[in-house]
Every structure is written in structure tokens, then in C-alpha cells.
């Protein structure tokens, strides 16, 4: 079957999934529901989860009778490299220090763009790393190690 309104169909599916997930978690982890006058920790999230699941179903139902545009293609390349670079920064900042973490972030995320120029990215990563050390560590005194701590340079 071909979807007439794929954007709305998948939005509805997403909302229903999230709604059910929250409601089910409340039940599985057994958050206390309490009573209407003394609501427990599970009450409000459970109700909201159910409401969202129902909203999602309504959206799905609507998507069957209306027509809409196709979902444009996911641009996997920027998605993977930008988010990947971001995560790598988070994981390496403490261990390898700010300079190397920034270098990695810039090189990885730049690779996700349309044209990747090695020399250009190398230069900009060096400039950004130096600038960030000056502004954030020397200036704002943020608690980042500059270099890998295990080398004893920090």
C-alpha cells in the first residue's frame, strides 16, 4: 500500500510510539499512580503518555484521508559526521584534552560537508583550537584539560 500522506503517517507513528513507551515504562517500573487527590509519580506521565498515543492515532487516521508531500531524503552524510563529531568531542574532551577534542570535532564534522578540503580544515581546526583555549580556558577559566592528562602535560 502506498501512503497518501507519509509525513503525517510517520509523525503519528512516532507520537504513538513515544506515548506508549512512556506509559509502558510507568507500568513496567511500577511508578506509583496514587489517587486523583494524591497523585503519585506515575499519574501525570501515564495520562500524558496515553493522550499522546491517542493523538498519534488520530494523526495516522487523518493521514489516510488527506494527501501530502513525500518525506525528503535523509542526508545521511552530514547527519552521521556532524553528530559523530559531536559525540567524539564529548567522549574525548576529558581524556585527550580540549585541543585534540576540537581537532577531532572539526575534522570529522567538516568531512560531512559538500566539499572537504583537507588543508583548509586542518588550518581552521588549529585556529579554532588555539582560539578556544584562549577564550575558554585562559579567559573564562573553564575546567578543561588542554592536553592529554595521562601524558602529564596538562
Amino acid at each position: 500500500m502506498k501512503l497518501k500522506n507519509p509525513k503525517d503517517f510517520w509523525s503519528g507513528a512516532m507520537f504513538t510510539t513515544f506515548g506508549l513507551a512512556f506509559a509502558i515504562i510507568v507500568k513496567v517500573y511500577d511508578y506509583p499512580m496514587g489517587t486523583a487527590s494524591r497523585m503519585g509519580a506515575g499519574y501525570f506521565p501515564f495520562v500524558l503518555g496515553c493522550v499522546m498515543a491517542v493523538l498519534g492515532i488520530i494523526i495516522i487516521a487523518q493521514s489516510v484521508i488527506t494527501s501530502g508531500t513525500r518525506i525528503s531524503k535523509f542526508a545521511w552524510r552530514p547527519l552521521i559526521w556532524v553528530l559523530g563529531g559531536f559525540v567524539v568531542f564529548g567522549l574525548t574532551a576529558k581524556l585527550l584534552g580540549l585541543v585534540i577534542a576540537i581537532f577531532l570535532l572539526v575534522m570529522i564534522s567538516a568531512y560531512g560537508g559538500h566539499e572537504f578540503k583537507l588543508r583548509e580544515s586542518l588550518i581552521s581546526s588549529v585556529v579554532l583550537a588555539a582560539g578556544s583555549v584562549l577564550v575558554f580556558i585562559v579567559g573564562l577559566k573553564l575546567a578543561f584539560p588542554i592536553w592529554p592528562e595521562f601524558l602529564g602535560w596538562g
Partner: protein
Amino acid sequence: MDQLIANLSLGFGVALTVNNLMYCLVGCLLGTLIGVLPGIGPVATIAMLLPATFTLPPESSLIMLAGIYYGAQYGGSTTAILINIPGESSSVVTALDGYQMARQGRAGAALATAALGSFFAGTVATILLAVASPPLAQLAFKFGAAEYFSLMTLGLIAAVVLAHGSVIKAVAMIVLGLLLGLVGTDVNSGMARFSFGVPELSDGIGFVAVAMGVFGLAEIMKNLEQTEEEREVFLNKVTNLWPTKQDFKDSWGAVLRGTGLGSLLGILPGGGAVLASFAAYTLEKKLAKDPSKFGKGDIRGVASPESANNAAAQTSFIPLLTLGIPPNPVMALMVGAMIIQGIQPGPQVMVERPQLFWGMIASMWIGNLMLVVLNLPLIGMWIKLLTVPYRLLYPAILVFCAIGVYSLSNSPLDVVITAAFGLLGYVFVKLECEPAPLLLGFILGPMMEENLRRAMLLSRGDATTFFTRPLSATLLAVSVLLLVVIMVPAIRKKREETFQEE
């Protein structure tokens, strides 16, 4: 009147200290700097720069944030006029006539009109804010838990109705936001919810992570989908800044009307700068004897929406400062910033921390003044930024975001969560789900739950309390009315038209 002057002079006393002037200036400059970059609106700008303000004292931090907000707005109109790329949605209409003016070699006049109109609007709206806040706060003190719950409901519904896009999807986004806001320790029972034993999550999801991911990272990935095109930048043509006498004559009426309309729409929940600029442009076109000139470089098409969006940006602080309810996502971020500073937004702020309250109001006016005085001469510098190719810009933006989010609590997990919300935000873009209601819901989630519980406890579990208390019933009735009205096909069509770019 005396009270007003006393309040304002207290405020200026705070805002005019060397330190706070500095923070206001830095905020305005940083805000413009980031706001000029195409595709980064005020929400993303504020989210990115928030961490830089956390270590400041509360007054300075909020003053700087307000400066960032105006700066970002201002930067957005600069790009709209010069390269036809609105830096944010509230300057979409400015681009229509502003860019045409720039092409006719009148970029200077357009930029100056936008700046002066904004400054005038900002001045009027600041006075309005100072006059209207105390009585509104008095009203707010009469609010009980039931009224607060109903007020938040109204705020959220209005935010949906006055925004564009599908209503039901926006409602679902609000609910998703509310749920995400509930992650973390339940204040009543001390139980950790949806944290799955991860200690960082028991403090809740950071709102910086949500805002930066959904508005910042997602935006970058969206921009990277398109190949870079050569932009026509009217760099050397910005020579004659001052508008002609005729320009003043043509635009003053538009500035006045834009200011009035913007001030009004800014107070409404969900209104804010975007709606104000669209409505002001439409109004101006309707009133004009020669509407055919619009879209071809009419100065009124710049003056009116720019005044309107600045007035609205200012007056949208009214519900935040008096009721503690953010009317739009930018204000939701301000709530988050206030809470991090240990200030619970609401009517008590004015009474308990008059320095903070009036200092912030005074600094709004100073911020507006700074933007006119400093940014007009600096326009050349901002334009240079626009000639930097995006492939060099976005890694730099990412570095800024990453350091900001990491330094919140020195936790790698925050960075990972931000990336996850970036992914989610990208999916929202693909599915055409507006992310703004999500952020509002996210901030209001815990407050709504708290007030719901308290109201229900006081009424001993009787849900009719929301309908039997007159104030609460009125607020809920208005919410229902809004939802019903929006379902009427004729109005629905009108709503879609209002947000249509021409």
C-alpha cells in the same frame, strides 16, 4: 507615576553599573555575531550562549541574555536585507522589501530604518512593560494552583493556534515536551522517573541540551543538505546610511502602527515576534493606497515589521516576568536560565528582587540603544562574516556548541544527549513537526504537574475545581474556544494565509 519613576531609576541604577553595561554590550555583540549567521535564529543563539552566562551573578546574566536576544533579532534583519536570507523567522517579511531596497542601492536606508524603527518600538514597549507589569503581578498573586494550571493550558494552546503548521501535530509536540520535561526526580516523592539508573538523568534532561540539539544541530544538518550557492552580498553599496527626508515621511506612520500592533501581539501567549512582523506587514499593505509597491522595495515594508517584531520581543517579557509563564520558546529559555540562577519566575520576582526586575527592564532599553549606536557603524564587519563560506562556519559553530554544552556540568553524557536531540530535531524537520511547542512544553512540564497535583489535593480529588473557580473556568473556556475556532475551515484558511510568504 512617582512609583514608576522610582522603579525605573532603581533599574537604571542597576543597569548603568560598569559591569552590567559591559555584559549588556557583550551580549548585544555576541547576539548579533551569531544572529547574523544564516539559519541560526534567536532560540539557537541563546541556547548556544547560555552556558557563558551561568557563572555570572543573576542580574548580569539575565541582562546579558536579554542583550543576546535583541542582538540576534537585529542580526537576523541585517541578513534579511543584505542577502535575502532571514536569520530568523521574524525577519522573513523584512526580506521582501528590504532586499529589494538593497538591490536598488538603498541598503543603508533600509538598515537604518530597521534600526531606528526597532529602537523607537523598543522604547515604547519598555515603557509599556514598566507600566503594565505591577498591576498584572498583583492579579497574578490572586492565582491559586488551579488558575495556574489553567493559565498554562491556555498558554500552550494559544502557542499552537498562533503558530503555523498542523494544529494536532503541534499539540502532540507539546505533550512530548511535557513528558520529556518530567524526566528526572519527582519533587513530591523523590522518585527518579525515566532515568533508568543513570545518575545524570535523575537531575532531568538539561534544557540547553534540548534547545541546542533541536534548534542548533538539526538546523546545521538541514543547511548542509543544500549545496552552497553563491550569495549576492551588497557589500560595497552600504555607504549612505542615513535615510532621506522622504524616507522618514514615508515610514513614520508604519513605525507607529507596527509598534502598536507588535506590543499587543507580544503579550499574547504564542504571539511573539514572528506573528507580529507578519501581521504588521499585512496591515501596512492593506492600509496603503498603493499596495502594488510592496515587495518592490517599499520602505514601509521594512519599517513596520521591524518595529513590530522588536516591540513584541520586548512585551513578550510581560507574561514571563509577571506570571512566570513563557509565551514563546525564547522566553522558555529565559525561564530555564532564571531557574538555574535560583530564581523562580513569577509575580514574586518583582517584590522580592526589585533590583533584578527593574534592572532588567532598564537594560532592555539600554540594549536597544547600544544596537543602534554600535551596530550601524559595525555593519561592515557583520557583512564580512557573511562572505565566509558555510563549510568553514559550521564546524566553528559546532565547537562553540560542544564546549558550551560540555561545560554545563563537565559531563560527556550531556554532549551525547544533545546529539540525540539533534537527531530527533532532524527527524522533526523531515516530518514537518514544528519544534517550538516542544520546548514550551518541556519547560512547563514540571510546573504543570506541580500545580495540577496541588489543585487536586486542595479540592480533595475533585476535578471540577478547574471549572467552578471563575478565573480558572474563564481561562479554560478561552482555551477551548481557541481550539474550536481554529477548527473552523474559514479561519483555518485565513491562518494559513497570514503565514504565507508572498
